[in-house]
């Protein structure tokens, strides 16, 4: 899923300083799962903004809505009756949600979260990057461990010389992806596959050819 973390409160407050009526919009998908921008976080952020205004001796009208999916125009349409009553929107969705709202309504939209990465949950409260969306998945030849996302240098042919105690040179908390790949290949008894050369990557499907698009003729 797409992971996100809430921005520092002061940054959000800075964005909305000129406005008296705002709409805080959450999303029921990824940001709910990673506890950054779901219904609960919308409520908490609204309270924090209220409190800040009170401290300054001012007030603010805040409307709270959490959409099923903010990156989908069909759900974003649900805001149509509320948008007319506010000066600005604060979106707690990922960057896709913020932009879907911005493209639909002529009202300033501000992000309340920083969109981080495509990750998986390692354990309660911990998410780690697993995919960079390179558009040409090589997990089938790397034992199900991605060197593009998990090697700090995205090396395609093995570990650099900086691995220490099996960990990446950038941090003792980061496992060397190629150490993991090697161990997995050994575990599966196919370590000889390591020696197959992975040729220089074509970065076009990864975004090197400009913004990417999927068109499904059967659905469009």
């Amino acid at each position, binding site marked *: 899923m797409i992971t996100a973390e809430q921005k520092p409160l002061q940054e959000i407050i800075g964005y909305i300083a000129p406005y008296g009526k705002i709409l805080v919009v959450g999303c029921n998908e990824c940001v709910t799962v990673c506890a950054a921008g779901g219904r609960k976080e919308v409520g908490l952020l609204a309270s924090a903004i209220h409190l800040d205004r009170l401290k300054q001796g001012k007030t603010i009208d805040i409307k709270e809505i959490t959409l099923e999916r903010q990156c989908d125009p069909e759900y974003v349409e649900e805001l149509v009756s509320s948008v007319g009553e506010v000066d600005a929107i604060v979106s707690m969705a990922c960057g896709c949600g913020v932009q879907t709202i911005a493209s639909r309504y002529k009202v300033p939209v501000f992000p309340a979260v920083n969109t981080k990465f495509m990750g998986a949950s390692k354990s309660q409260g911990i998410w780690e990057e697993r995919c960079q969306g390179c558009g040409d998945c090589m997990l089938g030849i790397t034992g199900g461990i991605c060197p593009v996302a998990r090697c700090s*240098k995205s090396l395609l042919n093995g570990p650099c010389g900086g691995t220490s105690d099996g960990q990446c040179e950038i941090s003792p908390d980061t496992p060397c992806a190629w150490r993991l790949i090697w161990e997995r290949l050994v575990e599966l008894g196919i370590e000889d596959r390591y020696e197959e*050369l992975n040729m220089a990557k074509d*970065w076009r499907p990864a975004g090197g050819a400009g913004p990417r698009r999927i068109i499904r003729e059967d659905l469009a």
Partner: protein
Amino acid sequence: MKTESRLEKVLAAGHLAVTSEVGPPRGCGIEIVEKKANLIKDYVDGINITDNQTAMVRMSSIAGGVIVKQMGLDPIIQMVARDRNRLAMQADIIGAYSLGINTMLCLSGDHPKFGDHPNAKGVYDIDSINMINMVKNMRDEGIFQGGAEIKNPPKMFIGAAANPFADPFELRVARLAKKVAAGVDFVQTQCIFNLEKFETWMAGVVDRGLHEKVSVLAGITPMKSVGMARYMKNKVPGMDVPDEVIKRLEGVSKEKQPEEGIKMAIEQIQRLKECKGVAGFHIMAIEWEERVHEIVEGAGLYPRPEV
């Protein structure tokens, strides 16, 4: 001969090769490059010029290489995948070769995190193995990485690094085999302090006959002090400094530690001369170029052959 490289000629003639390195200055000091190169010039067959080593900005390796070339010496320019995409690499390789540089080293490069611009984005468009392959195809096929023909292609003698000490050890011979398959001509290894482990790795290299396809130059670094030895053991990623090395340096007074470090380096070379598959030595005397001659002479590697 594939190239005009002096290093290639020395290796082809069956001599144990000797290379060393010059780190360019963090400013515009031509005289600094010249001074360092002058200290080692008569004792080596090629001089590595590092490329933004430890991710710190320095005079470019190619500029440093040209300075060394103009002194009538033989630069080996290093190139890291961290700082250039494949377009910039090929442009720089053509430029370097046009200015008389015929030997280069293809490296991944230390992560930007370690340097003085930790906010920089590492490029890593292609890895060191694909860089090797690209330089080989430029030379042998006369084509760019993108497939187009090159008019007057550069003919580089192609080097790379090998670290027998980084984890996982079991993979390290296979990693060299991949570099050989990609077209590498020589490798310079990480600094060797754990000789047994190096010899085990080398036995694996010889076992597969890789030493007949790639010249392995053993990396030698003299320790200046016990403090340096401890630092390298604890702080430098992928470095293997056994306790015996530290104990031996602790066993002599602080004033005598540099002498002891030089002596140890000479002993390592003497021992590794007997190691099958070792084709020469790469002496990395970190900011200690003035002592390289003692190591080369002490190890019986002087004078350097005329080729």
